[in-house]
C-alpha cells in the first residue's frame, strides 16, 4: 500500500462468518445456500406472533472452538441481547446478538507480511443471527427473502492493530485458514459465508490517540478489502492535509471505481436500545466442556507446518507455504504419503500447481495417487524435470495417467551413457563452431550442444548427464 510519510493507518476488522451448521441459530430451519425464496422459514425466523427462539448448541460449540483456536478466553457465562431497529430484512425488528457478555474475548492471531511476523489482537467473538436478503426491484420496490433470517453468524472483532492493506489481507487469510482448519465454516467470501467490515482511521506516526474512523461494510473479497483500505487511507490523509476534519460515517466501497463513497448520513444515530433477551437462558460453560473442545481441536496451521517440514523433509519456508492453505496441505499430504519423493511433490506443487490454480483457494483436479506416481517417476529418474512439468500440465488439463503416458509415448529419460555419448558426438559434429568456441574458453558453448541433444531427443535426454558428457567430449578436442 502506498503510504504518505508520517501518517499511519489504524485498521480494525470485524469479520462475520457463517458456521457450517445444518440449522439456523434459533430454529430448526435448514441453512442450505441457494434455496427458492421463503422456502426455509418458520414462525420463529419469520417473527410470527407467539414464536420463540431456541439456541442451536452446535453454534456455541463452533464459536468456542474458534475462540480456542484464536487464543481467546472463553466466558463461563454469557448472555444474549436484543438489538432493536426496523428494517425489512429483520422480521422481529430486533436481532438477537450478544452485547455485554460475548462468548470469547482477549485472543490473538499471528500474521506474516514479507519477512515480518506480527500478532494481531482479537477483542471479542460472539454469536448472533443473520438478517434476510433484499432484492431491489426495477419497479422501485424491494423484495424480501427470509431464508437467511436466523442463519447463525460468528462475529470476530480485531483490535485496531493492523497498519496496512497488506496486513489486513494477511490477517484475513490467516483467520480464514484457521477457521477452515478447525472446520467451523467454509469461509467463502464470494458466497457470503465470510464478510468483512473495515474500520479505518489515520494519525501522525508516533501519536497514540486514535483519529476519527470511518466504516466500510460487507466487503466480500480479500482484494476489495485491500483496495478499499488503500483508497480510504489516501482519502483521509489528503483530507487531513487540507485541514479538513474526518466525519465519522459508513462508506460504501465501489469495486468498479476502486473508491469509497459516502452513504446517506442520518441526523440521529441509531439507538439500538440493547437489553438482555428474556426468551433465552444465559449460556453457562463448564471447564470440562471447554477442555473437551480444546482437546479435540485439530492441528492448527503452525503445528502442521512444523510437522510437514519434519515428516517430509521439507525446508520450513516450503512447509509454511503449503500449510498456509488447508486444501493445499490436505492434498499435499495425500500425495506425499503415496510416494517416496515428497520433496519432488512439494516442488511441483509450489512451483507449478500453485500457479495453475487461480482461485482464492487451492484446489486440484489431479488425483493424489496419480500425482504420487508422477513424483516417483521424477524422483527415481525415470523422467527428467522438463518432462515431468509437461506431464503435470497434461494431467491438470486432460487428466492423463502419467505412468501410461510415459510408457506409451516413450517419454522416459535417456540415461544410458553409450547412447547419450553417441548423441553428443553427433551434436558436436553438427556444430563444429561450438567445439572451437569451447576450446577458446567460451564454456557456455556447451549449452548449445546440450540444447541440441535435448531437442533431438524431444527433451528426454538426462540433462545433467548430457551436460557432463558434453564437457568431457568437448574437452577432449
Amino acid at each position, binding site marked *: 500500500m502506498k503510504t504518505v510519510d508520517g501518517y499511519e493507518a489504524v485498521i480494525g476488522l470485524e469479520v462475520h462468518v457463517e458456521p457450517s451448521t445444518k*440449522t439456523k441459530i434459533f430454529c430448526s430451519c*435448514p441453512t442450505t445456500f441457494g434455496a427458492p425464496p421463503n422456502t426455509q422459514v418458520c414462525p420463529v425466523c419469520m417473527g410470527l406472533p407467539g414464536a420463540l427462539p431456541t*439456541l442451536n448448541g452446535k453454534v456455541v460449540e463452533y464459536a468456542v472452538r474458534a475462540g480456542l483456536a484464536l487464543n481467546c478466553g472463553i466466558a463461563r457465562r454469557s448472555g444474549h441481547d436484543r438489538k432493536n431497529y426496523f428494517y*425489512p430484512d429483520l422480521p422481529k425488528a430486533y436481532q438477537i446478538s450478544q452485547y455485554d457478555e460475548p462468548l470469547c474475548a482477549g485472543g490473538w492471531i499471528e500474521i506474516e507480511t514479507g519477512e515480518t511476523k506480527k500478532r494481531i489482537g482479537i477483542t471479542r467473538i460472539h454469536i448472533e443471527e443473520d438478517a434476510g436478503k*433484499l432484492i431491489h*426491484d426495477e419497479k422501485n420496490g*424491494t423484495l424480501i427473502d427470509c431464508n437467511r433470517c436466523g442463519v447463525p453468524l460468528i462475529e470476530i472483532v480485531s483490535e485496531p492493530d493492523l497498519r496496512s492493506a497488506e496486513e489486513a489481507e494477511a490477517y484475513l487469510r490467516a483467520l480464514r485458514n484457521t477457521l477452515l482448519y478447525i472446520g467451523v465454516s467454509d469461509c467463502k467470501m464470494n458466497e457470503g459465508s465470510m464478510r468483512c467490515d473495515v474500520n479505518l482511521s489515520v494519525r501522525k506516526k508516533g501519536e497514540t490517540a486514535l483519529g476519527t474512523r470511518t466504516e466500510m461494510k460487507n466487503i466480500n473479497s480479500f482484494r476489495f478489502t485491500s483496495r478499499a483500505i488503500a483508497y480510504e487511507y489516501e482519502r483521509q490523509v489528503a483530507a487531513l492535509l487540507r485541514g479538513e476534519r474526518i466525519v465519522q460515517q459508513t462508506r460504501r466501497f465501489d469495486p468498479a471505481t476502486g473508491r469509497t463513497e459516502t452513504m446517506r448520513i442520518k441526523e440521529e444515530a*441509531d439507538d439500538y436500545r440493547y437489553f438482555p433477551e428474556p426468551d433465552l437462558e444465559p*449460556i453457562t460453560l463448564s471447564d470440562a466442556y471447554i477442555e473437551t473442545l480444546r482437546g479435540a481441536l485439530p492441528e492448527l496451521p503452525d503445528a502442521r507446518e512444523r510437522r510437514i517440514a519434519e515428516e517430509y523433509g521439507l525446508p520450513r519456508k516450503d512447509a509454511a507455504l503449503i500449510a498456509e492453505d488447508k486444501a493445499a496441505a490436505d492434498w499435499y499430504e495425500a500425495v506425499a504419503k503415496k510416494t517416496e519423493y515428497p520433496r519432488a511433490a512439494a516442488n511441483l506443487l509450489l512451483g507449478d500447481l500453485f500457479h495453475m490454480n487461480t482461485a482464492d483457494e487451492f484446489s486440484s483436479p489431479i488425483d493424489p495417487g496419480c500425482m504420487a506416481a508422477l513424483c516417483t517417476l521424477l524422483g527415481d529418474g525415470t523422467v527428467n524435470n522438463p518432462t515431468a512439468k509437461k506431464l503435470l500440465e497434461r494431467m491438470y488439463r486432460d487428466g492423463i495417467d502419467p505412468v501410461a503416458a510415459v510408457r506409451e509415448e516413450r517419454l522416459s529419460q535417456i540415461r544410458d551413457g553409450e547412447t547419450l555419448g553417441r548423441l553428443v558426438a553427433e551434436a558436436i559434429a553438427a556444430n563444429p563452431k561450438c567445439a572451437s568456441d569451447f576450446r577458446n574458453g567460451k564454456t557456455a558453448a556447451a549449452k548449445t550442444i546440450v540444447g541440441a541433444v535435448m531437442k533431438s531427443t524431444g527433451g528426454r535426454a538426462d540433462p545433467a548427464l548430457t551436460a557432463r558428457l558434453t564437457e568431457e567430449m568437448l574437452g577432449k578436442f
Partner: protein
Amino acid sequence: MKITERDVEKLARLAMLEFDEKEKRTLAEEMERIIAFAQTVAATGEAREEPADELGDRNVWRADDPEIAFSRDEMLAAAPSSEDGFIAVPRALAKED
C-alpha cells in the same frame, strides 16, 4: 423530569409511530407523570446476587437437526403483498448497519 413534545416525536420515530399535535401534547403530559411515578424504583437498594431459588435449567440447547415444518404458501399466506415467492414492500433505503 420534563417530557416535551419533541421528546415524544423522537420516541415516536424510534417506535415507528406518528401522532398529531393534540396527541403529542397529551402524551407528553401523560408520559411525564408516568415517568415521575416510575422514578420510585430509584430508591431501591442494591441487590447483589440472584436469589438461590433462581437456578433454572442450564443450557437448554437444541440439536442441529434440520426440519422443514411449514410450506412457503403457509408462511406467506398472511403477507399483504407477495411476488414470485418474495414478500413485497416499497423500496428500502440502504441500511447503515
